[in-house]
């Protein structure tokens, strides 16, 4: 009896871990039915997503792939909130992640809205994985940024990744290590790693301005919230 109860408890604990996260993908088409991206592209992105997030035992399943015919949504301006809100209202609240594939976005390759991700044909699997990282609660990390004089210098050390596990190579410059992280703020083809613990780097933290009393984003060197065990969630949300 005790054993059976334990088994039920174990299954109950593991189920949320093992359940696939449903992906609802929509491809915008022009009036002639010509799609913004091929269906293979979407499948390729999902398989990349699964590859990256297998590190944290997350699995995504494409449960819907539908076409939307509306040529006004082929080209999206990330600053035109009325436009992308209308696009993302197509299937909000599915309980999974909604991906909207468009021909192009004016100033980036993919971006997060409160109701789903907008992805252009210029995006690759890593761009989508990076945005999903945000939906899972992780933030961007940098080695440097023109917006601040702060820089990450020096080598990696245990102190710079206190809650991360394994036996990392401490001989490499810490900035090089950051380039391998999924949440690295610059695009590259080697950013795949999701760490368990937070990592020291350059990030934006919320501070209270003593004079105005307002909270503002400021650049700082600290243990940035990229660690999945510390700040990640397996129930990604756009909010």
């Amino acid at each position, binding site marked *: 009896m005790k054993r059976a109860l334990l088994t039920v408890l174990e299954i109950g604990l593991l189920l949320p871990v093992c359940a696939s996260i449903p992906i609802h993908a929509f491809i915008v088409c022009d009036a002639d039915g010509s799609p913004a991206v091929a269906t293979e592209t979407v499948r390729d992105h999902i398989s990349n997503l699964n590859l990256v997030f297998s590190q944290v035992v997350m699995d995504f399943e494409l449960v819907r792939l539908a076409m939307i015919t509306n040529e006004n949504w082929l080209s999206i301006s990330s600053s*035109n909130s009325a436009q992308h809100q209308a696009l993302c209202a197509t299937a909000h609240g599915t309980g999974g992640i909604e991906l909207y594939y468009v021909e192009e976005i*004016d*100033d980036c390759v993919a971006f997060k809205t409160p109701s789903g991700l907008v992805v252009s044909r210029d995006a690759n699997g890593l761009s989508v994985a990076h945005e999903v990282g945000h939906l899972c609660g992780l933030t961007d990390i940098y080695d440097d940024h023109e917006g601040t004089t702060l820089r990450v210098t020096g080598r990696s050390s245990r102190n710079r990744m206190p809650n991360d596990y394994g036996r990392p190579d401490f001989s490499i410059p810490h900035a090089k290590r950051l380039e391998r992280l999924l949440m690295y703020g610059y*695009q*590259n083809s080697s950013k795949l790693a999701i760490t368990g613990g937070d990592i020291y780097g350059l990030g934006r933290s919320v501070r209270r301005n003593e004079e105005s009393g307002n909270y503002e984003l400021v650049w700082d060197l600290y243990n940035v919230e990229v660690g999945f065990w510390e700040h990640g969630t397996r129930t990604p949300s756009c909010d």
Partner: protein
Amino acid sequence: MSKKVRVVVMVAVLCGLHAVAEESCSRDVVVSAVERMSRLEHAQDRLEAMEAYRVRSGFSAEEWAGILFDIATNRNDRFVLQDMSRYASTNRLESLEAIVFDAERERSFRLAAFRVYALVDGFGERTSSLVARKSRAQNPDDQLSPRKLWLQINAMLPTNDVRRMSFENRMNIRQAGEND
């Protein structure tokens, strides 16, 4: 040539060489900084980085627009071109128009040039005139149709935007559609 003159000439040549080297070096530094900033994942992030770099380096908005324009056109980088819209003045409209009409260039890059054109012009009379001219000059082999340009306007302005309504009234949409 006397020894004194020869020394003066030599110093002048060396100073000139040094100035050229310094100029090309600083230009390389700027190009490499823009190249790195253009790889930032998020558009807002890129805007912040570029503005901070521009202010720190002492470039005026017009100078910066010129730098971004050169880099964008050399690399066919539509994102760098798009970033230029924040700094460009109407002085750049002719160069941008040349890109919109340049059938040799990639369609997405030409569309970006049109977006910047429309933004800099404030979706005004020159923008509608450009689309009308594009409509008249449409070449069947040209992948950039006036209808595509029209859709860019739709993408940039909310449906209830007054400028969009006046633009719609001014434009002969049907003619643009026929050439699609």
